[in-house]
């Protein structure tokens, strides 16, 4: 059902002059960016910078006041239904049904996407996200990390070519954050285009091919990590005794994944 003909070989997303205001508050004041197919694009910005507003417009949940946005070749304003066939949204809070079990949540989404054999799809995703054991339990008993994993798993059903992740690691503990990072990287490995928003430069650095900084309703910087680094003042060498961060202590004690680079980049 979700076979959407990728219209032309253009970028996965093209956003031009996007504006949105709530009353007198101008949230977006002309946002422009492109996202290449199969890439991970990070929209970086502080609270209230307009990240969520941008994502909601791209996911056809909100209408822009001005500007255009094309997702997977479809205009969000005039071809909203086509856009919805091409995307999946993982919002700021894990949008899972607490009363249902993890498996039932997955089956529900598979049914709504009119896929054959929802049960098999659910079981496959439970395995892939290490939720098989918890699959039959009600989601209300899940930890924050498990909820997020389930949330992301729900977004993958039907293999939408474009996925939005709005602050996917907000409120998660360090271990759960790493799990999410791994899940996202795996996604992009399969050719899915990912747009994620985050408040943390570190997170954008970990995952993104390209980073755009949204500030006061405009994109002020847009480039690869290397390009961004060239914009920073030249590094000065200082000798400072390195104290372990709480996160490093936590991971050392709990034996969490050592996949992450722990030298830390403070800006």
């Amino acid at each position, binding site marked *: *059902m*979700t076979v959407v003909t990728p219209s032309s070989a253009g970028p996965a997303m093209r956003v031009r002059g996007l504006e949105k205001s709530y009353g007198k508050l101008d949230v977006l004041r002309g946002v422009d960016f492109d996202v290449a197919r199969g890439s991970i694009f990070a929209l970086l910005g502080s609270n209230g910078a307009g990240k969520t507003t941008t994502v*909601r*417009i791209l*996911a*056809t*949940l*909100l*209408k822009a006041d001005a500007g255009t946005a094309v997702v997977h070749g479809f205009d969000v304003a005039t071809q*909203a*239904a086509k856009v*919805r*066939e091409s*995307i*999946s*949204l993982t*919002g*700021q*809070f*894990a*949008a*899972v*049904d*607490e*009363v*249902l079990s993890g498996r*039932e949540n997955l089956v*529900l*989404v598979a*049914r*709504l*996407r*009119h896929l054959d054999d929802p049960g098999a799809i659910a079981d496959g995703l439970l395995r892939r996200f290490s939720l098989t054991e918890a699959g039959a339990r009600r989601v209300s008993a899940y930890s924050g990390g498990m909820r997020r994993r389930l949330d992301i798993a*729900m977004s993958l059903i039907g293999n939408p070519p474009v996925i939005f992740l709005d602050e996917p690691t907000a409120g998660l503990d360090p271990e759960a954050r790493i799990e999410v990072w791994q899940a996202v990287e795996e996604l992009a490995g399969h050719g899915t285009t990912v747009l994620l928003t985050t408040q943390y430069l570190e997170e954008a650095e970990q995952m993104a091919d390209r980073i755009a900084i949204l500030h006061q309703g405009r994109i002020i910087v847009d480039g690869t990590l290397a390009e961004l680094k060239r914009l920073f003042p030249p590094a000065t060498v200082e000798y400072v005794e390195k104290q372990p961060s709480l996160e490093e202590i936590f991971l050392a004690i709990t034996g969490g994944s050592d996949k992450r680079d722990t030298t830390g980049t403070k800006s």
Partner: protein
Amino acid sequence: MTAYFLRDTAVLTGRTLRHVTRSVDTVITTVITPVAMMLMFVYVFGGAIDTGSVAYVTYMLPGILLITIASGVSYTAYRLYTDMKSGLFERFQSMPIARSGVLWAHVVTSLVANVLSLVIVVGIALLMGFRTGAGLPAWLAVAGILLLFTLALTWIAVIPGLSAGSVEGAGAFAYPLIFLPFVSSAFVPTETMPGPVRWFAEHQPVTSIVDTVRDLFAQRPVGDDIWTALLWCAGILVVAYAFAMAAYRRKIA
């Protein structure tokens, strides 16, 4: 996407119905208030109210059933509010489905949950001495009117469910609805009320519905009351639906 409207709505209704069957306490809570009122009125105040030859429980049951519906729909608002807050509503709206199916699923679930509560309340009333000689057509008419009333109140419940800022706010709309039967013919004949109160009681929707249901149970001709009752229900339904749709459009692009 309209081709999938029925299928998507059925899938989503299955989900919300599980919310009802997995939290039976919501059905019990819905039923407790009207049953407690029934006990109070029948065994405490009832003796002081003159309803002629009819047993008081039989006299008051129609009003109690309306109170049951009014308290039942507050859970509809609550369930919808929870979907809004958890982000599930947005998740569904961003999927390639018949978008309005999300609302209809809540509406259908509201009807089912209320029918369940009504059956329990009628059962308890029977234990307490409620009797009727009404035949199948009269029962069907009663069921039809109560369903229409439930549908109208459900669409009222959708409005705070979509737009409330807090759980308390989402449920608060039900209090005046629960209170309305008290200023009607539900518990005492309106003739005993002072002028302005009596005027209000005789011209508000609950009285016509209560009188119609009461007449149907008593196998009396229903007269014009049934048309007034149906008009009220239809009117509330149309207005509530319009406001609910306006609230819905404010939430989605």
